């Protein structure tokens, strides 16, 4: 009797331990670079849980590493109005418009765009489709690299340099 009780306790303990251990104990070492991807696929097939875990544990790559700089370059376009009194005025006005466009592109790249869309469907037909995008940002220290003016279209190439130290505080 005493031995049978001990046996039951031992069996229940082993079953509890078996539940806690992973479904597979096969471990494939993927250190060999030649077999790299095939090896990882095989590992994922054997134990998908482990594959997910390894993806989560991978160190996230910083966009802007410490001590490095990122250079963001855009080209803004602007058009001269039809009723200008001189080509010089047309150039000046088109350049302003192109600069504003370049600023907008920089803001979009660095800060992002808010997009709202709405479609109205009536009797299975699209009646009205609207997309509204907005950007709001403060842009400092943007430099004009190059300005070109051809056939009424002005293009301003603008760049901004982002340093890690600007975001570290």
């Amino acid at each position, binding site marked *: 009797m005493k031995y049978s009780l001990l046996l039951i306790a031992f069996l229940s303990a082993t079953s509890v331990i078996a539940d806690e251990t992973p479904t597979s104990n096969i471990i494939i070492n993927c250190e060999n670079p030649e077999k790299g991807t095939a090896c990882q696929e095989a590992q994922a097939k054997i134990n998908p849980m482990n594959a997910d875990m390894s993806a989560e544990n991978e160190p996230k790559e910083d966009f802007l590493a410490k001590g490095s700089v990122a250079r963001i370059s855009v080209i803004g376009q602007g058009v001269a109005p039809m009723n200008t009194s001189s080509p010089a005025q047309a150039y000046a006005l088109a350049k302003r418009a192109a600069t504003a466009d370049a600023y907008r592109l920089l803001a979009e790249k660095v800060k992002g765009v808010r997009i709202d869309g709405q479609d109205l469907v009536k009797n299975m037909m699209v009646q009205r489709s609207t997309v509204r995008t*907005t950007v709001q940002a403060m*842009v400092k220290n943007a430099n004009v690299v190059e300005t070109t003016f051809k056939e009424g279209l002005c293009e301003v190439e603008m760049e901004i340099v982002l340093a890690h130290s600007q975001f570290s505080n």
Partner: protein
Amino acid sequence: MRSRDGNRTSTLSIFKLILFFYSLTLSASEYLISYRYVVKDAILFNEKLDISKSMHKCLGNPLTPLILENDGNHNLIEIISQNEEEFSSYLHQLGLNVKHSEFNLNNQNSSTTVLTLKTTCFKVDFNDNFVRIAPLK
């Protein structure tokens, strides 16, 4: 004991010194400048530069200055209008608020971009050959 006349001269000289330094502080000019321009559908729609003399003393330290050529003129509006491009690019360097909205209705697009420099106090030093303009922050 000192005579009253002797005390009077020293008091006058101190008073003159105070007046001199007070006049110096009055001649150091501070201006409030704001700038805004609107671009609609890639065409410049409106541009506005407001310049006015500050009615009270501004606080803050001057940042990187802009030096414009001057021939003894003490009118800031005239000086800026003579060097409009240079001043405009300097304002861009200082930083502008960008507000852009784009609207697409049934595949037809329209956009509005507003660039703004909020009202900022600038310290302006007029010299014989040049003017030094620096924003205070």
